[in-house]
């Protein structure tokens, strides 16, 4: 009896770890393979290998030294950083109002903000294009910073509102009795308590902006103003049939590694941020 029970337990255990292994391999393999490819050059590229067997930095050298890829990287960093800072600045005060002051229509306003963050961006593309041309910022980083606000702002407002709601009411009341105005409460009481939330929200918004493609494709028109996703999407060889897979993979790894590192460092916070933006209760 005991022996069969143990066998059953062993089978269950094996199957479980097999499932775990499948999940891990499927999740990681494409990225692993991209890294593998990025270190191959010449004809090595077209030999299929599952394990590293050749090593060359040629692709990285090509990507970083020719064309406008370094410039694209800078564009991406600049656009994403400015977008996030702007969104956080507007969102901190707005989320105080949304989480701490009761007023008529607050529920509706929150739902609208959530709606905008889930908006199909295609629906505003024509109007945004007109507006961006009218403002004279077409084909500049400002066009992207301007348009990215459509998804970073509602997202940061929503997540920060969820976070701020969790802060204890009595601390705010103590500050009110101490004579603090709403502005003082935000800047001197709440903000110092919210650093972790701000970092998380900022990081998530940064990733969103960093990965954005549709607006970047539409509102920039030459190599020097593009961001990296567009640059990678449009990387092509000398002829139509010659796709520079090695360069593409090198560029992809360069763009992705910082994100993956950040995400792994901030895993726990990111998970809590994602769920705050998604579900609560």
């Amino acid at each position, binding site marked *: 009896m005991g022996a069969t029970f143990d066998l059953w337990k062993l089978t269950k255990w094996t199957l479980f770890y097999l499932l775990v292994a499948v999940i891990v391999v499927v999740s990681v393999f494409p990225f692993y393979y991209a890294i593998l490819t990025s270190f191959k050059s010449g004809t090595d590229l077209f030999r299929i290998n599952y394990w590293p067997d050749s090593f060359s930095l040629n692709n990285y050298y090509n990507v970083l030294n020719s064309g406008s890829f370094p410039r694209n990287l800078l564009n991406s960093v600049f656009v994403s950083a400015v977008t996030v800072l702007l969104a956080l600045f507007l969102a901190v005060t707005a989320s105080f109002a949304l989480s701490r002051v009761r007023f008529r229509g607050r529920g509706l306003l929150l739902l609208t903000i959530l709606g905008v963050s889930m908006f199909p961006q295609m629906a505003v593309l024509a109007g945004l294009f007109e507006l961006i041309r009218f403002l004279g910022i077409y084909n500049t980083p400002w066009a992207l910073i301007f348009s990215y606000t459509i998804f970073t702002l509602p997202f940061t407002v929503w997540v920060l509102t969820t976070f701020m709601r969790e802060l204890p009411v009595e*601390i705010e009341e*103590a500050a009110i009795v*101490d004579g603090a105005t709403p502005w003082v409460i935000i800047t001197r009481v709440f903000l110092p*308590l919210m650093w972790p939330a701000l970092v998380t929200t900022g990081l998530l918004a940064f990733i969103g902006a960093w990965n954005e493609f549709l607006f970047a494709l539409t509102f920039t028109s030459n190599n020097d103003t593009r961001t990296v996703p567009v640059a990678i999407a449009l990387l092509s060889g000398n002829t139509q049939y010659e796709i520079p897979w090695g360069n593409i993979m090198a560029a992809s790894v360069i763009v992705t590694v910082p994100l993956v590192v950040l995400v792994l460092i901030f895993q726990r916070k990111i998970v809590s941020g994602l769920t705050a933006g998604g579900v609560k209760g």
Partner: protein
Amino acid sequence: MASIELRNIRKSFGAVEVIKGVDLEVRSGEFMVFVGPSGCGKSTLLRLISGLEDITSGDMLFDGKVVNALAPSKRGIAMVFQSYALYPHMTVYDNMAFGLTLEKGHDKAEIRQRVEKAADMLQIRQYLDRLPKQLSGGQRQRVAIGRAITRDPKVFLFDEPLSNLDAALRVATRIEIAKLHENMHNVTMIYVTHDQVEAMTLADRICVLRDGHIEQVGTPMELYEKPNSTFVAGFIGSPKMNFIGGERAEKFGAKTVGIRGEHLTITPNEGTWSGTVIHTENLGADSYVYLEMGTEEPVVVRLDEANSYKSGDTVHISPMADKIHRFDAAGKPVN
């Protein structure tokens, strides 16, 4: 020095009226305790006085001036919260100084002097550089009180400040608050609690609230000796007052007779009433005997010494004639 007057104060949250017309005068320098079961509106009333909550109608006067719309920070109040509500990211010093730094006209030296004076009063000077999370619960509550003292308020508000502390600390902190009141005799203090022992030991006067109304206001002894309803009679005093109804009450010309355990004597052979012992408790200095005699709850007799009654014993008891409380059908005293 500040006296507070409430005139027909009402408060509704949406359609629910929580405070249903309260008239009350808190004298200057008085220690007033609001007491009542949970949901009676005592905390809401305190928050109305603090200004954290708006009154729906009525008038609130501080020193004869209407303050209905005045912001909390301009009322000269300080408040101590149940959860301490210290600013977690500030040191004890900064916590205590925060209010003064927001007010104009205090220089650094003056702030430091006032913080240190308050810290000395509460013996928390050695903690000034610590963060709240490095302190014990009792120390945190002292800091919260210290923060209130630093602001030099005319009115001191306490919202169940002891309920997060364990039993031993609660007694110690209670004594400290009593001493504080002695030292700051010209500061008006209002204290909310659901614990009648805190109310009895701390208060100059107690205000018993029930369901948004004031049930009775008076000194602890007035409430103990002359409760003007069965509710107050049952709420104040420990053990709870015994209520005896039916024929036994009618003999006294009342619907209900109330008699405290300490005002009952056990008589050997015959007495006014008799009952069966169902339980005894010996506390050392005194002891309780619980009797089953057909009342809603068992009748408790409090004796000044240990007793040797056993469950199942039949005993006779007699009330002290001048300590009997007679109530009518509405729970009001019969004259």
